[in-house]
């Protein structure tokens, strides 16, 4: 089977968020990482390949982005992807990303396409579903368990208050969340060395339009200072929650 993992390049999760004129994210001094869920998806794909080399022919990572995303793609190669692709495009919304990915996938034959549940920057949770509909592939979202046995997929998905086991036809788009693997795989020294020799193909984008526009950003209003209560007087806390905050 051939697996494609869609990876987004996002600011490190501890980044202090700032904007330029409230119209664009201020990327000054920001550290970039593989979107956390995409990193988990990639880790899981590699785990399966390592455990059952005969099942997985190849793992490709793909990103829609500009040249600055290449460090992140290289990191994915260092973790263990076989080759990387960058579609050279500055997408304005998730639809545009999904469209670019679909244009590429249509010409190839991947069995499993993995996306993360959302990007930690714009919190879309869009691309995987959109991609599957453009391709008219089945999709399974909120996947928390993925395995392959004798050429068949074993899938579990989280639902509110429980879990479902599913089967799906291939090719399919799998949208993964936490639980799919425990910890993201960290690149080894050897991985980092071999990543330099792996192929990173850059392809030109198709023309496309976005359906939405980000017009303005805003930081939340600063919160009032925390009211401290004496640990010897917990009753006061409960009174405040009842009479002042009116939440109990």
């Amino acid at each position, binding site marked *: 089977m051939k697996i494609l993992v869609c990876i987004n390049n996002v600011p490190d999760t501890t980044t202090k968020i700032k904007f330029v004129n409230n119209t664009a994210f201020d990327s000054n001094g920001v550290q970039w990482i593989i979107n956390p869920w995409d990193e988990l998806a990639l880790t899981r794909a590699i785990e399966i390949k390592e455990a059952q080399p005969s099942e997985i022919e190849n793992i490709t990572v793909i990103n829609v982005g500009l040249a600055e995303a290449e460090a992140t793609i290289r990191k994915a190669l260092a973790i263990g992807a076989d080759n990387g692709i960058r579609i050279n495009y500055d997408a304005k919304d998730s639809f545009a990303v999904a469209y670019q990915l679909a244009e590429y996938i249509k010409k190839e034959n991947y069995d499993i396409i993995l996306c993360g549940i959302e990007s930690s920057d714009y919190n879309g949770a869009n691309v995987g579903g*959109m991609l599957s*509909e453009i391709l008219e592939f089945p999709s399974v979202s909120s996947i928390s368990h993925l395995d392959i046995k004798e050429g068949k997929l074993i899938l579990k998905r989280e639902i509110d*208050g429980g879990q*479902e086991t599913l089967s799906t036809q291939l090719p399919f788009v799998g949208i993964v969340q936490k639980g799919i693997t425990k910890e993201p795989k960290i690149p080894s020294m050897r991985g980092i060395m071999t990543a330099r020799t792996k192929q990173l193909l850059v392809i030109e984008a198709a023309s496309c339009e976005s359906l*939405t526009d980000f017009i303005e950003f805003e930081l939340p209003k600063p919160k009032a200072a*925390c009211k401290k209560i004496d640990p010897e007087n*917990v009753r006061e806390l*409960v009174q405040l929650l*009842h009479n002042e*905050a009116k939440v109990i």
Partner: protein
Amino acid sequence: MSVLIYTENWDGKFKKLSFELVSYAKEVAKKLNTTVTALSIGNVEETELKKLSIYGANKIITVTNANLSGLNNQAYTSVIAEITVKENASVIAFAHNNTGKAIAPRLSVKLKAGLVTAVVATPITTEPFVIAKKVFTSKAYAKVSIKSSIKILTLLQNAYGLNESPEAFNLETFEPILNESMLKTTVLDVNKISGKILLTDADIVVSGGRGMKGPENWGPIEELASLLGAGTACSRPVSDEGWRSHDEHTGQTGKIIAPTLYIACGISGAIQHLGGVSSSKCIVAINKDPDAPIFEAADYGIVGDVLKVLPDMITAVKELKALS
């Protein structure tokens, strides 16, 4: 024209989020001078369906079809698209939960309709259609405009609340057209955790972190939660260590919740944890470290040993309940 919402039931009962969604849709419909149509897939009794009209649904469409018994993203998308056309809906709203995230993006492509997820309020303007959503895991907000004629939204839970606005009850059934090509996934088995309050549905959440020291100390958290009718949650290391089950893990990589009250017990308040809880209306922190970052996010705080504070809190809540 109408505002269409996708409601969700749980064993025939609507989740709170469905009532919130109707309340929300009602206000959007008022802005657009139109009505609210609620779609319900699965077996729900009429007395339960009627509840949707209390929050403002003018029309309720039910679909019962054996092929839709498990969530099949492709088939559900097709059904909702059919109903959108039939109802001439201009806005379609989902809850921003697993189901909404699974269907809304597919529907967006199928209808060529712009989608904004994790919206936090009703549209700022309707011409052009501009709406606010959370970005950077609640560390910021963005105003987004939708350019297409049909607009799709997913509403962040507890962002709007409940609001009654009774309407006459108008029920309709709908028989969708489904073909084999849409039925490529099958649900083989469902494993539901019963007897627990759904974390994403809970008004109050009591949550424990590594400061609780070990799974054997969770008794007071559960007791407090049961007194308050609350759900229980935990930080990531707690579920990673297996002290608590994974469905309790809140934070950026776990569940994102926004209860009216979040009580953080022995949780340091790392930025990734706050990403999942910072939209709570009121946050209480109990931590022995006065410099723990959780106090910056909290409204009320106690600097002290959580294992001593929790029993006192249980006593105080019992006293309060006895009085009221």
